[in-house]
């Protein structure tokens, strides 16, 4: 096709003839596709994290790279954290279902005893960990949380000796404080643990 109004020199015409050869056409198409893909990828990456609808936020700390010692500590704490969470949920729900008369007193007793054993095991495992200095405060925070959980479970267990259900009320603030603590530490170590729901 000849574009009207464009005067071409013989050199230009020769170049165009070369470019119109089948092999050159294929090569050109491949290169153009690659360039398009690269441009699309760059454009897409640039769009991530800069949604035009996002509220502007003040500069917030990004998670710094973990040292090997920090990473090892967080990995070793992970299964302990899972066991603590599971025991706490079972004990909390046990008390709820006992109160709503959906769980027997004996079944609640079993749950609380199991939780206490689990907390004791978690405490032993925590003492065996060697946190790096940078994570020492979080380690102590977690340890104190498990201590509170233990005290809470021990308090609830008293209801099975003296028959007074109000031990659950006495135990509650300790369990709540401990839950807040492990949530704060967990939020730091495992930001993906509870994704948007």
């Amino acid at each position, binding site marked *: 096709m000849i574009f009207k109004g464009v005067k071409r020199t013989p050199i230009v015409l020769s170049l165009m003839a070369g470019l119109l050869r089948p092999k050159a056409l294929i090569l050109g198409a491949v290169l153009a596709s690659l360039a398009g893909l690269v441009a699309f990828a760059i454009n897409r990456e640039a769009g991530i994290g800069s949604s035009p609808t996002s509220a502007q936020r003040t500069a917030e700390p990004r998670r710094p790279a973990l040292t090997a010692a920090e990473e090892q500590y967080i990995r070793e704490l992970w299964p302990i954290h899972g066991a603590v969470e599971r025991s706490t949920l*079972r004990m909390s729900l046990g008390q709820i279902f006992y109160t709503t008369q959906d769980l027997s007193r004996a079944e609640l007793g079993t749950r609380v005893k199991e939780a206490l054993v689990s907390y004791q095991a978690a405490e032993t495992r925590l003492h065996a960990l060697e946190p790096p200095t940078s994570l020492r405060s979080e380690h102590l925070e977690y340890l104190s949380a498990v201590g509170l959980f233990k005290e809470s479970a021990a308090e609830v267990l008293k209801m099975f000796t003296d028959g007074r259900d109000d031990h659950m009320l006495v135990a509650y603030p300790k369990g709540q404080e401990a839950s807040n603590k492990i949530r*704060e530490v967990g939020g730091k170590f495992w930001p*993906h643990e509870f994704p948007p729901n």
Partner: protein
Amino acid sequence: MPSKPLLNHAMRIGILAMVASLSSGGSLLARDDDEDDQGRPPQVLKQGFESTDQLLGDIERAERGPKHSAWIVESSRFVNVPHRSFQPDVGDPAFVDLPVNLGIIKAPNGDLTLYDSGWKQLAYIFDWNTSCCWHGIRDQMRAIGLNPDHVVRIIIGHGHWDHSGQLSEFPDAVLYVQKEELKQIDFFLDYPVRFNGGHIRAVNTVDPITGNQVGPPAQACARSPVCGYPPQTVQEILGKVLAGKAQIVDGRHEVAPGMIIHPAFRGHTYGSQLLQVNTARGQLVFGSDTYSSWTGIRDWFVANIQQTDTIQQFLAYEKCYVLTSKQNSFNNCISAHEPISYTAGYPITSNWWNIPGGNCSRAAELTLANGERTHVPPSPDRTPPASCHSVVPPHAIHP
């Protein structure tokens, strides 16, 4: 290689086994506790079934009650969420911001009801740039002219942490939660032990360092049965129960004149519940995450699939269509995470403003009744989100 006759025999035996298993399904069936006396066979799980006639009857019933005023406020906002992870059928734009809306309903006597209670887990939310704009509900309420001390009840649409936080901020309020919601958490805590040799973790399904999924089958926390219920949230529910400030609801429940809870089991979680509220613009239906997306209800798309049965989510959409059938239809369905909340695109939320001192969180006035004057300021701050500067509130542990 097996011979052809052998394969034929194997196929026959397989077909026979399949027919036998289908015809002897009795062992799978459990007693149906639903209040449905229409002679249906028993169901495995509670269905939360409500017929169209029953729902239409609840319109009449609620209309005999008082009219209410209503607002939504944004507890916080998830930012840059991949759109398709929220709505698989909708991908444009590729990333969206999701508000976390909760409802505030005011009765003629001044009593306030919260539908959902936002979140409180600040370290998780803020330290790694996953959200913005959090502000405590009590402060938000004061800033829009509502007294948080007048909150008499909190109805949680479901028990996930971002909708049931801050319960302890309202010690005198009565919590309404479905028993099914609590039962599912309890049941699935044993899931890995009982059913999958410990490979699926109901709590903790991500690699502790990389955040990648772990354990066969690949399943992120968000897709596991009880993810979303940290001990902190369940402890707060326990606190309400022990204090005698909880109503463990089982299905439909009339909370007060003009205010009715409807079950939406597995519409998002096992014990999800809706709240029908009588107002001057007809029945409003608050849906929490069962109604995560209002455009999803309008256009019949699923949204925010968690512990969701998509059929049940659609049936819950349908409940809204029926309950709002006399006035405004789906425009009266109130969504928790609709990305276009606080815009004219979601008309009922269009009368919005930035909450003064509210860290870029927003409020919208949905409807007024009983001579209630507007709470929208005379010159509302409608600075668009992109130009609003939020800050990280103080919290216990910083990185």
